[in-house]
């Protein structure tokens, strides 16, 4: 009995502690990430030797599991720690090394370039930051980060209170997204592009064109995906931005007629009552 119990405890300890499966790697990552988060909580007060220690932990983790996706995250955390500590050159070097090491992955490289741009942005070097962002658009336009960048640039100008450049950037973004959508109007990329076009028109406060972009989504994709969320967005724009309650109600009624079981049905009914 005692021997069986001993064997059971040994087996459980072995399985929970020693085996290096994905779960064990996740546990190791959680531990180092926890220490990195402590630096992010108060980067200014964190002494440089503590930063070095955490960076070493993260580098060791990445070196121990080079093939694991969490190794990429560990590398990025190192760069972000440098950013948080305002060590911009070190951060850029780190992101450059990540881009080099994972050059086959558009997602990783575009993220590394984006964070390099962020390092410039934090130094208030807008031109250098924009140059990085434009590099993502030209090299990796279809990566998640690449898709966001045209709109991001416009928003960046908006945050810098440069309305002329912002408007130009939004118009540029719209034509960029239209170009992507026109390649294949029935693709998921076209759906995403039209959503971004609608958001860009929203950024320009051009609500009619924003609605037109959303209607284009409905026209092209209503047979393949539920459009209840899009209809709700249109209704909200009519109501909140254009103050056209009649059109808002018509759109909400359309939502309820076309998608009576929608998760937005209750919200639509509430809005109709107002």
């Amino acid at each position: 009995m005692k021997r069986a119990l001993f064997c059971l405890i040994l087996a459980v300890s072995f399985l929970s502690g020693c085996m290096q499966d994905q779960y064990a790697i996740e546990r190791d990552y959680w531990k180092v990430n926890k220490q990195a988060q402590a630096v992010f909580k108060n980067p200014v007060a964190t002494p440089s030797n503590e930063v070095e220690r955490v960076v070493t932990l993260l580098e060791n983790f990445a070196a121990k599991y080079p093939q694991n996706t969490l190794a990429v995250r560990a590398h990025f955390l190192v760069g972000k720690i440098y950013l948080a500590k305002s060590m911009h050159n070190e951060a850029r070097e780190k992101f450059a090394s990540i881009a080099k090491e994972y050059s086959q992955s558009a997602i990783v490289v575009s993220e590394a370039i984006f964070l390099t741009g962020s390092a410039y942005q934090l130094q208030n070097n807008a031109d250098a930051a924009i140059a990085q962002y434009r590099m993502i658009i030209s090299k990796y336009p279809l990566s998640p980060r690449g898709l966001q960048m045209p709109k991001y640039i416009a928003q960046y100008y908006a945050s810098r209170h440069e309305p002329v450049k912002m408007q130009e950037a939004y118009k540029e973004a719209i034509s960029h997204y239209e170009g992507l959508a026109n390649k294949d109007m029935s693709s998921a990329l076209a759906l995403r592009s039209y959503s971004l076009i609608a958001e860009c028109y929203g950024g320009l406060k051009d609500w009619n064109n924003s609605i037109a972009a959303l209607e284009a989504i409905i026209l092209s994709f209503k047979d393949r995906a539920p459009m209840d969320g899009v209809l709700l967005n249109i209704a909200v724009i009519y109501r909140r931005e254009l103050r056209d309650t009649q059109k808002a109600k018509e759109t909400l009624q359309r939502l309820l007629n076309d998608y009576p079981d929608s998760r937005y049905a209750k919200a639509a009914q509430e809005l109709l009552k107002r």
Partner: protein
Amino acid sequence: MKTKLRTVYHQTIQALKSQKKLLLPFGIFAAVESLVLTLIYLAPRVPFRAVLGPPIKAFRGEMFLHYPANFLIIPELSSFFRNILTVILGSLLAGTAAVMIRQAFWKKEASFIRAIGEAGRKYFQLFFIVLITAVILNYAYKGVTFGIIKYFTAGHKELLGFGFAIWRGPVTVVLNVVILLIVQAFFIYTVAFLMLGNQKLFKAIWQSFVFFGKHIWQTLLIVTLPFLFYIPVIILQYKTAYLIDNVFPEVVLIIAYSGIIISSLIVDLFVTMSATLYYLNNKEG
């Protein structure tokens, strides 16, 4: 004349001191429950993931097969499996314990084998009693949740000075504990009436209700006092996400194992023994 609770607890301690075998049914249940908890903990790991991973993924989501999110569902899953184990195994062991307690009450040597044989012959009835208790509890818990949600979705902002978050959080936990204790008090003597009083199933249930009606305060104390030891576990399990984030994820597992030890070897042990001894003092003493 009603037996004093102090006498019952004294008898419980004395019986446990003189016959360690009385711990066996509760120890077995704790061991099986610990084994199940260990399997839940190991579910995201190779080789258990191949078997336990798909149901967790289907019912709760893929994220709960990763560290540390898997610890978030440990209290819920362990509670779910505890309920199943209680109906399947706990029912048999409760009957076994009742027979062993009577043997000890009459100063005889408690025999686990003989007691489990006797309980086995009435397994169906024992199973049904625990099942019916579990079903009532389940519906009562759902009723509380449904009532609270219905009240607040009707447009009310607060009830008795508390908002929705408080009602859905700590108040629901407290109400569930109160429901558990009341339902348990109603059914607490059913196993004794069935196993020791040789009553038929439904008569045993009815007799338990009647006995509870005659001994309300003593019975409520019998089920409540040992349960007080379990309250820290409930509070800690309610704060699972906080503990994972601020202490370390494995603390959830430590709490779950502690919960098993406290619930099986303190709460269930004392509730079952004191209720059975209270019954024996009043019926056979």
